[in-house]
């Protein structure tokens, strides 16, 4: 099957700032593909280029088989978009918002009513369809945006931070819709997130940092590539335990929040040895598989939070430099 999205050397520069530094990747049709990275990593700029909202400085991309620069309207006709900021008309009803969308996308009117009902049912807004959008909660608005993004049967659905700013319950319901969608429809889903736990739902993820794709694979493969499990213990004497870990097992441990943390391959198998040989009484132990946080850490050398802080500093400097003196 053809790639739903094919990107070659895609680059975007704003003056001296390189937002996206020549990325290459393919997204297979039917996949849920996630872009993971801190704010300012270039995720949104990449998605905007794929959605024809920003023109690339260099490189090329096709979406649903159409070139994003030369066949802009065709790309637009075949993609659905849900942005992080709301783009609904609050003074219209849900129905009117959908009708407006149908007209702008040139949908045949005969098939419209059942299609509208179905997308509204899918996100559980069928009963509120005649209410003004201004009376909706934040979660309902986001669900309506997803329904609207699906109305014209797009081949690729782009979701830019679809759950940002929503409460945990609404976040999980949005993920439920995305999963159902993937099972029932012939659709490719391309999303960005900076929530590590959400990236787990994707078939494949690409980690972006400083405008580059650092690594791209399935969440499982990425976690496996980090290899080691994380072991956390509390002991009667942390100092002694740290020394013992270093001398007997050749392990570097860090002390934080009253816990010793270190990484070993095959953590569960290591625990019996630890009890037998450490020589310091152990009060508790926990072993966890590597998370995507660890993956991000191991590929970028920083946590996603620190990376965001650094990026925002970089932006602050840029802004500061632009102030005329």
């Amino acid at each position, binding site marked *: 099957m053809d790639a739903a999205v094919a990107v070659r050397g895609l680059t975007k520069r704003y003056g001296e700032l390189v937002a996206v530094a020549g990325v290459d990747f393919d997204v297979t049709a039917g996949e849920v593909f996630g872009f993971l990275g801190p704010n300012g990593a270039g995720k949104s700029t990449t998605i905007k280029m794929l959605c024809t909202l920003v023109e690339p400085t260099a490189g090329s991309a096709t979406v649903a088989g159409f070139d994003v620069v030369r066949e*802009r309207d065709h790309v637009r006709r075949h993609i659905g978009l849900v942005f992080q900021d709301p*783009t609904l008309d609050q003074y219209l009803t849900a129905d009117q918002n959908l009708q407006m969308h149908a007209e702008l996308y040139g949908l045949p009117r005969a098939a419209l009513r059942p299609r509208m009902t*179905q997308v509204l*049912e*899918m996100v559980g807004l069928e009963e509120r369809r005649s209410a003004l959008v201004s009376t909706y909660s934040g979660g309902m608005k986001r669900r309506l945006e997803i329904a609207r993004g699906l109305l014209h049967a797009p081949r690729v659905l782009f979701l830019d931070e679809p759950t940002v700013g929503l409460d945990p319950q609404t976040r999980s319901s949005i993920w439920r819709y995305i999963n159902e969608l993937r099972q*029932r429809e012939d659709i490719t889903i391309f999303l960005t997130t900076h929530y590590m736990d959400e990236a787990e739902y994707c078939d494949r993820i690409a980690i972006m940092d400083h405008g580059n794709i650092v690594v791209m694979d399935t969440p499982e493969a990425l976690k496996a590539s980090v290899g080691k499990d994380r072991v956390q213990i509390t002991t009667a004497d942390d100092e002694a335990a740290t020394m013992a870990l270093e001398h007997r097992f050749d392990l570097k441990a860090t002390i934080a929040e009253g816990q010793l943390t270190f990484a070993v391959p095959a953590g569960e198998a290591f625990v019996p040895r630890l009890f037998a040989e450490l020589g310091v009484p152990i009060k508790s132990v926990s072993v966890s598989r590597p998370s995507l946080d660890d993956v991000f850490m191991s590929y970028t050398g920083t946590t996603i939070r620190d990376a965001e802080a650094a990026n925002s500093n970089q932006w602050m400097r840029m802004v500061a430099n632009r102030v005329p003196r």
Partner: protein
Amino acid sequence: MATTLEQPLPQLAAPPPTLGLRHDIRAVRVVWQREMIRFTRDRLRIVTALIQPVLFLFVLGTGLSTITAGTTQNLNLRTFMYPGALSMAVLFTAMFSAGSIVWDREFGFLREMLVAPVSRWAIVLGKCFGGATTATAQGVIILAMAGIVGVPYSATLFLTVFGELLLLAFTLTAFGIMTAARITQFQAFMALNQMLLMPLFFLSGALFPLGNLPAWLQVLTRINPLTYAVDPVRRAVFAHLHAPPAVVHRLNPGVTWGSWRVPTGVEILIVAAMGVAMLAIGIWEFRKAE
């Protein structure tokens, strides 16, 4: 709900290979329709937009007529100011309607329109028609008050003025959209409006006749595009009045370039040409932005 979730969504017929002009015209209409829905839903706005012209016409017009009564004989000052009030209703509503494009930008809906597979001109034209319709509707409410200010109800007068107001509303909305194209905050647009509206209105001949003015005012009124929209309305109204020729000559001197009185046809052409030019600039600006 559980049952419907198991069925796949119905696939729509394959979209046409090229969307083309018919699709763009559909987009113009839906953008216009949206303006209509919002206009009819916002009753308060309809009322508030009437306050200013009604104040000028009945309060200022009546108040000042105590000074001018001796010189205008049986013609009331309100009658003279009536074309001005009509233009004012259109002016304020058209600019406000054009401002909704800034509002749409600020609240995100503009993006929904800009990412759709439609031409930018279709969106701008739809907005422009929407603003022209709402502004003309406001004008019509003032038009219905003709009898109160001593202007006879006449079908030809009504139709002539209606057409002229429609053209004026279109041009002013195009002007508003042109200025709104780059503005991202509604506050900023309102501030710009405050700066532009009153000078445009004061220098248009809506409040005083344009004959016998000092040279500087003569020049300023002649370069104001609104002047060429107010004058045809006044001519139409005066054509239906029965007043002494001397009074008519003084109150309705028309717009003159040197000693040449600019004919109505030329005035209308000026307003139409300005409208088309500003609409083109507005579309061009929206093509460049984003």
